[in-house]
C-alpha cells in the first residue's frame, strides 16, 4: 500500500504514539533511543495510529509493541514475520512493522525472516542487533563475535557469527539498511526510508545492551573513533569516510580497498554507491565490510522496486473475483460435475 493513502489524519506528535504502558527496559538500554525515534518517525509521516500494527516475537526488543499507541501483537519466539505475513494477506491496507532481535530473528525465527523477505511482503522488519540474548540473561547469539565469552560459552564463543544484512541481501531483499541506536538523526532517516519503501524493508539497528554486552558497538558509537569506523552511504555518492572525509573505498579486483584521497587518488576512483542497482552484488559487497578491517557502512544499502506479495495476491484475488462480477455463488460450485436427484417419494403420493 502506498504511504500516501495513509497520510490524511491531522498531524500527531511523537507522544501521541506512546501507549499508557510503563516502559520496562533497563536504564540506558539502546531500545529507548529506537522507541523515541520510531515515535518521531511515525509522527513525521503522519501514519494513522489505527492503521499501524507492530508485531513482535520474544526478547527484549519484542516488548516494543506494548509501548506504541497503535495496534500490536506480541507473538511467540521468532514467528513475528509469519504473523505479520498473515496479517498483511488479510489486511493489505495496514502499515505493518515487525520488531525482532538477533536471537528472535536470526536464530529461532530465521526461516520466517528469510521467507518474508524473499516474498517481498510489504512489511518493515526492524532487527535490533545487540549481539547477545538479553531477556534470557546473557547467552551468545548468532551475531556474537567468535571468541566472545558469555554465560553459555564461558570460554568464548565457537559459533561463527552471521551478518544480518548479508543474509537479507541473499534473500532477494528489495530494501536493506543499517542504523545505530545513538545516531538518532540518521536512524530517523533510515526508518523513514524503510516506511516509504513498498515491499519488505529490512533494517538492522546496532543496539547496545548495557547489562549483558555493554560496549558491543563502541567502535561504531565512540565520539573519537566513529568517523574512522563508520561510513555513511549516500545514493550516487562515492564511499568516503574519516573525520576529514579524506578516505574512501575503491575496488581492487572484486575486493574493497581503503585509500587516502589526494596524491593522485580522487573521488572518481572511488566506488559510487547505487542503492537502486538491479543486481544485489554491490549491496552484498557493502554488507561484507566489517570492523576492524573496514569502516562499516550505515544507511540504505539497497532500495529497489518489485511487486509485493500482498499486492500480487490482492490483485490476483480481485481479478478472479471481478472476472465473474463478484464472488461466485457456492451453489454453482456444489452442482459442478456429476449430480443426481433423489425424488421425494412421499411428496409424490396423492394426499389421503
Amino acid at each position: 500500500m502506498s504511504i500516501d493513502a495513509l497520510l490524511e489524519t491531522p498531524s500527531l506528535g511523537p507522544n501521541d504514539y506512546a501507549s499508557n504502558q510503563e516502559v520496562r527496559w533497563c536504564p540506558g538500554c539502546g531500545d529507548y533511543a529506537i522507541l523515541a525515534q520510531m515515535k518521531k518517525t511515525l509522527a513525521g509521516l503522519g501514519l494513522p495510529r489505527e492503521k499501524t500494527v507492530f508485531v513482535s516475537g520474544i526478547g527484549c526488543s519484542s516488548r516494543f509493541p506494548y509501548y506504541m499507541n497503535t495496534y500490536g501483537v506480541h507473538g511467540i519466539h521468532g514467528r513475528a514475520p509469519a504473523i505479520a505475513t498473515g496479517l498483511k494477506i488479510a489486511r493489505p491496507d495496514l502499515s505493518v512493522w515487525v520488531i525482532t532481535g538477533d536471537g528472535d530473528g536470526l536464530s529461532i525465527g530465521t526461516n520466517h525472516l528469510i521467507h518474508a523477505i524473499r516474498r517481498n511482503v510489504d512489511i518493515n522488519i526492524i532487527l535490533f542487533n545487540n549481539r547477545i540474548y538479553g531477556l534470557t540473561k546473557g547467552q551468545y547469539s548468532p551475531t556474537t563475535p567468535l571468541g566472545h565469552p558469555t554465560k553459555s560459552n564461558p570460554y568464548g564463543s565457537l559459533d561463527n557469527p552471521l551478518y544480518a544484512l548479508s543474509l537479507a541481501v541473499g534473500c532477494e531483499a528489495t530494501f536493506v539498511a543499517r542504523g545505530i541506536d545513538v545516531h538518532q538523526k540518521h536512524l530517523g532517516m533510515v526508518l523513514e526510508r524503510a516506511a516509504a519503501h513498498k515491499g519488505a524493508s529490512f533494517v538492522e539497528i546496532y543496539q547496545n545492551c548495557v547489562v549483558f554486552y555493554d560496549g558491543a558497538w563502541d567502535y561504531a558509537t565512540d565520539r573519537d573513533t566513529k568517523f574512522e569506523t563508520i561510513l555513511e552511504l549516500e545514493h550516487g555518492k562515492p564511499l568516503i569516510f574519516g573525520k576529514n572525509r579524506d578516505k574512501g573505498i575503491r575496488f581492487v579486483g572484486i575486493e574493497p580497498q581503503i585509500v587516502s584521497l589526494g596524491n593522485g587518488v580522487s573521488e572518481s576512483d572511488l566506488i559510487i554507491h547505487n542503492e537502486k542497482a538491479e543486481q544485489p552484488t554491490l549491496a552484498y559487497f557493502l554488507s561484507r565490510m566489517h570492523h576492524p578491517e573496514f569502516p562499516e557502512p550505515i544507511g540504505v544499502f539497497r532500495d529497489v522496486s518489485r511487486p509485493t506479495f500482498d499486492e500480487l495476491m490482492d490483485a490476483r484475488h480481485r481479478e478472479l473475483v471481478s472476472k465473474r462480477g463478484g464472488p461466485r455463488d457456492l451453489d454453482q460450485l456444489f452442482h459442478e460435475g456429476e449430480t443426481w436427484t433423489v425424488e421425494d417419494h412421499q411428496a409424490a403420493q396423492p394426499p389421503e
Partner: protein
Amino acid sequence: MNSFSPIRASSQENTVLMRERGEVVQQQSVASSSVKAGVELREATVRFAGDSGDGMQLAGTQLTTASAAAGNDVVTLPDFPAEIRAPRGTKAGVSGFQVHFAGRRIYTPGDKIDALVAMNPAALATNVGDLARGGLLIVDSNSFVKREWEKAGYAANPLDDPALSQFRIIPVEITELTRAAVKDLGLTTKEADRCRNFFAMGLVYWIFDRPLDPTLRFIAAKFGKRPAIAEANRRVLMAGYHYGETTEAVHQRYVVRPAELPPGTYRSLSGNQALAWGLMAASRLSNCDLVYAGYPITPASDILHELAMRWDYGVKTFQAEDEISAVAAAVGAAFGGKMGVTASSGPGISLKAEGLGLAVMLELPLIAVNVQRAGPSTGLPTKTEQADLLQALFGRHGECPLPVLAPQSPADNFEIAVEAWRIAVRYMTPVMILSDGYLANGAEPWRIRDLSEYQPIPVRHPDPDTQDFLPYRRDERLARPWAVPGTPNLMHRIGGLEKQVDTGTVSYDGANHQKMVQLRAQKVAGISKEYPPQPVIGPERGKVLFVSWGGTFGAVRSAVQELLETGYEVAHTHLRYLNPLPDDLGDILSRYERIVVPELNLGQLAVLLQAKYLRPVRSVSKVMGRPFNVEDLVEAGRQAVEED
C-alpha cells in the same frame, strides 16, 4: 484336473457369491434364463489394486461417481503407498481403492471385498486376503509372468495356487486387449498401457451394471485437449465393457438398486473437499473472509489444493514456509479480522502447538484441522489412525483449553467446518477439527446443501464509538470483543504474556493469573450448553452402550445395527464434540452397565471417559492403519452382552 485353469461360474457358485451373510436378496434362475441376466444384490464391495502408476485411484474415483449416479449409497476407502512410485511390481508400490455401494444406507467401505481387480501379482499378494470366499478375482493375466510374480515374492505363478480355488478367477489379457484397442491411434506402448485401468473399469461397470456416461463425460473433460488420449481411454473403457458382454469369461451380472436416501440433489464428495467447502460456506454465512495458511503434508494437502482453486469464490490461500508459519499466519489473519484456518497432520500439529497456545491466549477465532494419520513421527503417513485425541485436548503447555470437534463421515466434514467456525467466532477461540486419513480421502454421496438451510453466523467487530472499550471485557459467553486494526480509538496491544482481567494489559500478578486461567477454561467448558441433545440409538437403557468418535462412526453404527437385528440389545452414541464433552453424556453413560469404546488408538477416549465419569469402560483398539471391520465390532458387542 487342473482346478486353476479359468473357472467358469456355476449356478451353485452364484448362490454363494458375494456375501455369505444372506445378503443376496433375490436369486434369479441362473440355469434357465440367460446367464447374463442381473442378480440383484443389496450391496457390493469392489477393490481395484495395482501398481501405484496403474491409475487405481482414478478407477476407484470413477466407480464411486458411477455408483453414486446409479443412486446407490457409496462409501470408499482409498489406500495408497507412502512412496509416489515405489519400484514397479513390488508389494511396496501397490495402490488400492475400495468402493462399497448399496441399495440402502451404508456406513463403511466394507469389511470383505466381493470383487478384486488385481493388475499384477503384487496387487494380488497384498489384497487377496480381504477377498470374500466365492468372490470375483479379475486379474490381468498378461502381468502374471515369472519376472512379475518373482518381484511380488511368489515362488511360482500364484494363479496356479490351489488356494485360489475358493474364488472365481477371471483372467483377462488386459494389457494385450488394451494395446489392441488403441493400436491405430499412434500411441506409444507406454501411453497405451496407461489406459489399462479403463479396461478394468469397463469390465467392472459391465459386471455391476454401472452407467458409463459419467466416466465418458469425465474422459471428455479431462483429456479433451489431447484427443488421441481421450479416444484411447474411451475405446478401452468400452472394450472392457464389451468384453464382459460378448465373451464367456463372465457369466453373471449383478444389479444393486438405488438406495432410499432423503430427497434432494446429490453428488459424490470426499472428506477433504467437504471440509474445504464447509469452510467456504461458513465464510459466506458469517460474511467473514477465509484466509487459509498451510504447509504440504499427507493427508491434509488436498484441503490446500481445493481451496487454492477457489480464489474466485473469495478465498485466500497461502502456502507457508513451514507448519509454524502457517499457524502464525492464521493468527495474524485473525488479528486482522478474518478467519484464519490451518490444517495439517500429526507431525505438523505438534509443530503448531505453540502457535495454538498463542491463539488461546490472544482469544482469537481460528480453525486448526488435524487430518490424523498413523504415528508417532512419520509413522504410516498414508494410513489412518485416531491417536491424536489426547494431543488435541492436552498437547500444549499450560492450561490451554480449546474446543475439539470431529466429523463422523467424509461428508460430515462440511457440517463440522460450519460448526467449528460458528464456535470460533461466537466464543473467540481457536477450534480444532480432528479428521483422519479415512475421513479425508473417503467419499460418499452428499445431499447438496443450500446455505439457507443454515443459521447465519453473526460476526461483530466493535465500532470506533464503543464506550469504555476494553480488549478483554467479556460478554455473557465469556467471549472478548474482536476489535480489528483500522478501527480508530480502539488501538490495543495483545500478546502471549498473561493479561489483566478486562483491560488486557500485561499482568504478572498470581491471583489475576488464576482468574484468567479459570476464565479461559470456563469459557470453553460453557460451549456444551449450546450443543444439541446427544443422540443415542438402541435401547434407552440396558446392558451395553457403544461410545465412538470420529471416523469409526460407520463401522460402529453398522455393527450396532447388525447386533440389534440379530437380537442383541446394544445402544450406540457417537461423539462429534470431544471438548467439551456433551453435558448429557454422563447421564447417558449411567444408563448402561457396560460401556464399549472402539478406537483406532490404544484407548484414548476410554481414558478420558474413565477419568471424567469414573466409569470403567472396555476399550476396543486397532492400530493397523485401516478402519475397523464391522465383524470385529459385532464380535466385541456379542461378548459384552454375553459375558457375566
